[in-house]
């Protein structure tokens, strides 16, 4: 509790300070800081205090290369958010994005051709780069200071390998959301469930009310060569709720086996929804259609009224087809996936991290910028259509474009929230990006029991 209180106080103080700096340092450059407008498709710009980069000396005219998985159209907002830094320092940021980045980065590293900075989509890759290729340079003090100031210590922990802090977090995702249609709920008179039991009761009520015509839940885990990850998120969310965050940590760190009874229980609890032919798969087919339905399309039956509930992360916001109104009184919105009681708010989160392969001053200056709250705010302002949040304390919610992003930020900042990082990203890649994905897909596709699946995954855990 003490940590949380301090965090809030710090947040207020820091944002106040940032605001003051913005006003004094950049008062002459017009209306930068005030938002840029939500939903208009017009990216605003954000003013920062250039003094932060003085310690890096004269770096004008140098170039920093960045390699990421963030491609168009999201790339545009990334590049836009680098502009304040480029203006301050005269450094050119060369941005390269590829969906194949996770496979290509180790190739470049081994060939002696790494970028200056890579935005790593998950800590597992960070871990591989450090332990296997010894390729990253530790984060400079300025970055560490930024992270200590702006982020909960758990986030610093995800960027740390064997006690050395390498990578500051960049953005954050909140995964514990259930998407629904506010208008359908209103029509049927349904309330947003507050507890896990409420959620199950609501599911049953939908079945009863529609005479079994409509399956309340829709889900899909197909995602190309990463098929299965949305399923692992589901399980992780349920483990957090049925077994609790402590067991979750033990499970992820393999202090208890993968097939521990508490985990099997969580699989079964998830199965009460996901393997229940009465509850799934609304508008998409039988239980096994979860395995083959693209995760990107899995929520769409809500729009057709064929499904009421779809659990997906905050970034599903940008997946809805063009013209869908994402709002509390719109076509779709999301509520927090409830826990056993209303007192606890275990939340599954994930995020990207900033790895540096070089310690040239301009690279460190850019790292410092990316790890600062200035960047978080600049990025928020540069993302007029929303779909982006950060767990940085000093991110001003007013800069976020949509109500939903603000709701996500609220959950991240809620003192009751107990955030846990996506476990499959933290497990060894053989499991986290291998057998866990494959196992959960088989769990949907065949009649394998929870025990059998967890046994198989445990058997694949590297010794």
């Amino acid at each position, binding site marked *: 509790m003490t940590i949380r209180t301090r965090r809030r106080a710090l947040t207020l103080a820091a944002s106040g300070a940032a605001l003051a700096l913005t006003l004094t340092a950049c008062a002459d450059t017009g209306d930068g800081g005030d938002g840029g407008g939500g939903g208009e498709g017009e990216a605003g710009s954000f003013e920062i205090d250039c003094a932060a980069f003085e310690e890096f000396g004269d770096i004008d005219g140098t170039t920093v290369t960045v390699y990421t998985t963030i491609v168009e159209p999201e790339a545009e907002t990334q590049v836009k958010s680098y502009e304040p830094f480029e203006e301050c320092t005269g450094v050119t940021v060369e941005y390269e994005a590829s969906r194949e980045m*996770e*496979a290509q980065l*180790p*190739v470049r590293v081994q060939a002696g051709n790494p970028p200056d900075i890579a935005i790593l989509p998950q800590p597992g890759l960070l871990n*591989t780069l450090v332990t*296997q*290729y010894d390729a990253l340079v530790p984060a400079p003090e300025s970055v560490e200071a930024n992270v200590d100031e702006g982020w909960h210590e758990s986030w610093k922990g995800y960027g740390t390998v064997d006690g050395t802090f390498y990578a500051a977090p960049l953005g954050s995702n909140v995964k514990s959301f259930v998407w629904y249609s506010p208008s359908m709920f209103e029509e049927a008179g349904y309330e947003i469930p507050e507890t896990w039991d409420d959620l199950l009761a609501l599911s049953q009520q939908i079945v009863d009310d529609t005479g079994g015509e409509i399956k309340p839940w829709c889900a899909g885990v197909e995602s*190309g*060569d*990463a*098929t*299965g990850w949305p399923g692992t998120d589901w399980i992780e969310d349920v483990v957090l709720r049925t077994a609790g965050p402590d067991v979750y940590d033990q499970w992820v760190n393999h202090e208890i086996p993968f097939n521990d009874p508490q985990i099997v229980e969580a699989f079964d609890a998830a199965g009460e929804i996901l393997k229940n032919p009465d509850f799934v*798969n609304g*508008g*998409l*087919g*039988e239980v*096994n*259609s979860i*395995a*083959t339905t693209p995760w990107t399309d899995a929520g769409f039956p809500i729009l*057709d*009224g*064929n499904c009421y509930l779809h659990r997906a992360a905050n970034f599903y916001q940008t997946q809805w087809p063009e013209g869908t109104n994402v709002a509390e009184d719109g076509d779709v919105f999301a509520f927090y996936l409830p826990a056993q009681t209303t007192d606890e708010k275990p939340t599954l989160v994930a995020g990207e991290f900033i790895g540096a392969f070089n310690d040239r001053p301009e690279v460190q200056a850019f790292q410092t910028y990316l790890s600062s709250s200035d960047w978080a705010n600049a990025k928020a302002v540069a993302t007029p259509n929303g779909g982006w949040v950060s767990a940085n304390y000093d991110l001003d919610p007013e800069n976020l474009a949509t109500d939903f992003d603000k709701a996500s930020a609220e959950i991240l900042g809620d003192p009751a929230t107990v955030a846990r990082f996506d476990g499959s990203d933290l497990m060894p*890649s*053989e499991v986290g*990006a*291998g057998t866990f994905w*494959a196992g959960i*897909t*088989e769990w949907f*596709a065949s009649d394998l029991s929870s025990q059998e699946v967890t046994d198989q995954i445990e058997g694949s855990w590297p010794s």
Partner: protein
Amino acid sequence: MDWFIYAGDDPGHKLMIMLIAMALFVLVMGLILFIVDRPANAPKWLVTAGFVGPALLMLTVGLLYPGLDTIRKSLFNRNGTEFLGLDNYVRAFTEPQFLLVLGTTALWVLVAPAAATFLGLVYAVVVDKSRFEKFAKALVFLPMAISMVGASIIWKFVYEYKPNTGAVEQTGLLNQVLVWLGGEPIQFLLQRPLNNFLLMVVLIWIQTGFAMTLLSASIRAIPDDIVEAARLDGLSGLGMFWRITIPSIRPALVVVLTTIAMTTLKSFDIVRTMTAGRYGTSIVANEFYEQSFRQNNAGFGAALAVLLFVIVIPIIIYNVRQMRLAEEVR
């Protein structure tokens, strides 16, 4: 010097560098051939080196050295720091599902090249010299112009499943046809072992154009007097096809089969894109990619690549024997 290497984003500069590269290449090759040709009685090794040397040099650097390096890597651990001997191979063969992967791979090599070649041949024969030949050939060739990933996306679409309830329409053509015929839609990609064949269809769909092009040209080269003589002997239709066409283009058939078999063994894009190797559809190439580039296990990945090479040995032996036979005929 940099000017010759990097063009930046200037279009004119890019084209200049391209022209310079081509001119340079022509110049070097011309010089080599000039040297080889000049002395009235150039030593044979020099002539041989002039013809074969440049290609062998590139192959050695570009493929042979990496290939040998892979064999070495397959004896080491995931980042090459620890010698493991044959452990990676042992793991490959003791991994519980790996025998299934090997079996599926064998199925692919046996079915896909044969089917693509057969269909390409049949099509080449039936459209040969018809009025629509050009158009008809372009249609079957079309899939060649699509990347494997693109083709996989197209076919994923064809196999798509939607439940057969009143409110939902089918979006996959195959299931729509089933529904029109009064059947129930099927989760095609989950049906083992049918799903393996459905994935092969994608490769066959792509490679048939390749087979058709080469075989059709080969059929064209069958001398008329042979065809004429056979006709006088009363052969026509299928008889002509089996007794004249097939034997006449046998060497081309072997070449086409071999080439497609090699492609089949190497391609993993289709499996990755369509099922990610789940539901019993994984093949060795997919496992190789998964280990090398997803799990970053260079050693195990390399062992799987070497396994690919072992699988191809029978094909090589068969080709060598065919070459010997052809040599004798000549």
